[in-house]
């Protein structure tokens, strides 16, 4: 598996990361290096082996259905770039 410059630009756009043309060129090489390295795992025959979902044998913990949180509006809004009354304000997103 490898990526080309178009793919790198697309992933950057989807991730909302602005990269310059020069950075994209550099990124192609770096990402392909990483992918090639990881690809070595493909040499191992894993036929019949269940995918591992966690490194420690652990079970998913579930919560009971009770209200234990919330009601912290000021905390939640504290870091908002623009607070408008009780709301977050964001640039208008309607088309």
């Amino acid at each position: 598996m490898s990526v080309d410059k178009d793919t790198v630009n697309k992933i950057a756009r989807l991730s909302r990361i602005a990269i310059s043309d020069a950075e994209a060129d550099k990124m192609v090489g770096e990402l392909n290096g990483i992918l090639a390295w990881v690809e070595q795992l493909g040499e191992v025959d894993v036929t019949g082996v269940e995918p591992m979902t966690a490194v420690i044998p652990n079970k998913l913990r579930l919560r009971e259905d009770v209200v234990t949180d919330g009601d912290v509006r000021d905390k939640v809004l504290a870091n908002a770039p623009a607070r408008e009354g009780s709301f977050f304000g964001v640039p208008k997103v309607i088309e």
Partner: protein
Amino acid sequence: MSQYRIQGNTGEWEVVIGLEVHAQITSESKLFSGSSTGFGAEPNSHVSLVDAAMPGMLPVPNRECLRQAVRTGMAINAQINRWSRFDRKNYFYADLPQGYQISQLYHPIVGEGAIEVTLNEKDPDSPTKKIGIERIHVEQDAGKLMHDQHPTMSFVDLNRSGVALMEIVSRPDISSPQEAGAYLKKLRSILRYVGSCDGNMEQGSMRADVNVSVRKPGGELGTRTETKNVNSIRFMMQAIEYEAQRQVDLIESGGAVVQETRLFDPNRQETRSMRSKEDAHDYRYFPDPDLLPVELDDAFLEECRASLPELPDAKRARYEAMGLTAYNAAVLTAEAETAFWFEDLLAEGVDAKQGSNWLMSELFGALNKMGKTLDESPVNPKQAAELLSLVADGTISGSIAKQVFEIMLETAAQGNMMGAAAIVEEKGLKQTSDTGAIEAEIAKIMAANEDKVAEYRSGKDKLFGFFVGQTMKAMQGKANPQIINDLLKKALG
């Protein structure tokens, strides 16, 4: 079931429909946090640091939400997956603080199932059709955006953010707007029976994404469009009608349907393209590393199954076995609220036939007049049972019961409902079985109508009704009709 065809210039077209229904799971707290799910709260008050996606916050699943999804799956006879997993669906939007929605793409908690629908659930003879359900998965809802509060800004309220949804995905087995409506109605009814979703479409607890394509009958599947977030059954049927016709017109005029997301505009009754960016659908799903797989054990599944209520189809069959007409059984079970009301009435000791007839004619009639739903009924099952028991034990007649019921409603409207027994007592409506009094009236009526007595005796049987009416009138409606009958037969010979 229905032969729905669109007549185009090049012949007939059939419509292929699949629905993705988002149903809000009934729970106190959110899917991955302890914030309240209560509707209508102050903006951003039902939000925890988890729901606001502050760095370092970890999701912990709500057992009840998983339980309700499993119970819903069992109610549609679906395969329940003991092992399922949460994935991240990545996209950027202002109502999604995490930058991804936690959902289940690869391993949903519920697999294949089906529900049986009928075009008219109140008509027992209406044909039925099985609609396949591909899967039900559990996911987070997003926040709410408001666009009309500020000239350059949208406002974000995260109260809904993180509320648990079930996405119920049907097979493309639906072939008309009517079938789609019937499917959504039946699904809503099942959700309400199970108690996993309140089915309230106006409040957004249930919304549908509608996939529509058209093809020549029996031909290859056409390209589909997806109309998002339709929030009423009527709008969904209109959206399908419009969208199918639009696609036929487009294809016949030489164009091609583009696979895209559309919006339904209820005011203009048309769908419009959302003009989304080309890569909007590149969600880059991957397993959520914050969450271990969901593994359901026997005890959990056993409890889910044991706590399932009797479902509409089974209930209907049982009512018919109890001696109700097929029509009554169908009407009483079509909506959960009706069925539960009727069950409460039975629990008060009311006879099934008497109770169902009264519920469907008297109570529904009165509610209709008042423009109220059964949930808003001023009379509860216990109060109704009191009235019906007075009829059953012969204290009052059926026609007096109507009067008493009216007084109950009137006094309820004035804010203080009188019970049936109290009304009968106060107004002296008790039916008399005093044979002496009835016989005295009969004697008077016969004396005043000697000609009719003679006619009756010479074979004009129809006049019997006249004598019953006169006697009942003389008794001011308070005589036991059976006793009047018996005494009249004896007196008239």
